């Protein structure tokens, strides 16, 4: 089972400040543990929302809203992708992460291809596959 762990933003991450050396060290140690357990597949930090944008959809209208965005709770500043045997295992790993101060980290299961397939018509699936193929060839 694959999981995505979403790390929320903070005033510091929004200001583009790097975490303290202590926290970086703890986080590196934690990441090493995840790698040594064969759990971590990938992960990245995200740049502040001042370098991002939102697009609002309403009927035929598209409104572009430039960052930064203020509601820190809704901002994601990083993510991991993990491979675990169960939701419980993912939770156990997450509990070991070096966060503090009331931070809430969100754990989400990534749909397997099979679950997705059920909701897709064959035509839709083919088009989705073609698109994914093109994207991956470019990547």
């Amino acid at each position, binding site marked *: 089972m694959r999981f995505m762990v979403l790390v929320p933003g903070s005033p510091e991450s929004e200001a583009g400040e790097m975490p303290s050396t202590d926290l970086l060290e703890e986080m590196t140690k934690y990441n090493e543990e995840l790698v040594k357990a064969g759990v971590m597949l*990938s992960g990245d930090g995200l740049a502040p929302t001042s370098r991002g944008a939102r697009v609002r959809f309403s009927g035929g209208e598209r409104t572009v809203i430039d960052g930064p965005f203020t509601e820190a709770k809704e901002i994601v500043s990083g993510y991991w992708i993990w491979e675990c045997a169960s939701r419980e295992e993912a939770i156990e790993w997450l509990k070991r992460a070096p966060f503090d101060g009331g931070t809430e980290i969100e754990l989400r299961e990534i749909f397997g291809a099979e679950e997705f397939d059920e909701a897709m018509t064959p035509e839709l699936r083919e088009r989705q596959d073609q698109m994914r193929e093109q994207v991956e*060839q470019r990547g």
Partner: protein
Amino acid sequence: MTGPATQATIDAVWRIESARLIGGLTRLTRDVAVAEDLAQDAFVAALEQWPASGIPENPGAWLMATAKRRGIDALRRQTTLERKQETLARRQLLHQLEQPDLATQVDEIDDDVLRLVFMTCHPVLSRDARVALTLRLVGGLSTPEIARAFLASEGTIAQRIVRAKRTLTQAHVPFEVPGQAELAERLSAVLEVIYLVFNEGYSATAGEDWTRPDLCGDALRLGRILGALMPREPEVHGLLALMELQASRLRARVGPGGEPVLLADQDRARWDGLLVQRGLAALQRAQALGAPLGPYTLQAGIAACHARARSVEETDWAQIVALYDGLAALTGNPVVELNRAVAVGMAFGPEAGLELADALEDDPAMAAYHLLPRVRGDLLLKLDRRDEARAAFERAAELCENARERDMLLAAAEACGA
């Protein structure tokens, strides 16, 4: 404490902690059988206590402390009625367990896991025993899980594990990472075990299902752990690259009715992009660590040629032939020769491929191997020699032990026409 624990949560903790726990206990007791018993005792204690008490803040340390305490209690009970020599051995063990564990630093724990892997993959054990013991002690799988995976009875697997542990004790196999002199050979035994597990999942040799993705997942996890613990070993990354790349095709490899879908017919958009990336990155690490390339890195190179190609036609078959040349020179394995024949057939035409495949027909090692007639069938069909192709596919079906694959081969024979 973090709230009451469910069975699933305790199982999850076991999966995370068991290899380190058993490794640490083996270092203390110098006996993997004793170590596993103590670890199991601690696990049972967790199952009894955690549902009410909740999971301790540091479950790994709790399990280790509990296992050691149980060991000490048992030893104290047993020391009274024994001959002197045995008492001495027990005293030493008792002493070991009563010591505060000074080796709780990260490095030592990693080394424990690595030592454990080299122990469970020790050449003194049969291949079957190595596989079962590695999945059990390093992978954290239960005996029923292993039995299910290998379509064996629980009794058979339990026996196999007990015997394997006994063999290790009797042979005085040391708990250590082998020295430079024997490292290459011992490491290759470890990699072989992991790849055996992967392959049993990737194309099951027997049974109703064509693939068993869970086993592939277990092997991948072991490979990833080893990749992190032995980052300087090129073949560790080579094997990991091979498994990541092959696993990226798992979901494209099975059709809607559970039937096998061969590489040429796979919908490449269904390959797992994340695993492809990880595989290519691991291959790069393996190659960067220096030549000459080992057998797993060469095979990963071949898998990478497929992973990079948009279609069968756009595959760099000449490069694949070159990699198979290297692999054949290294292994002299007739199965490699057969794969080389397939690649030659793609790069230089079916006639050239068939010539190589035909040359393998006299090899006794290939006499019962169903893939030889299957490859010949494919090549003969391309040459429009339909009668011979049909006979070859039928022969392949006869030799094949996997139900799904046999159906496919019979269908291929049928499709050749009368």
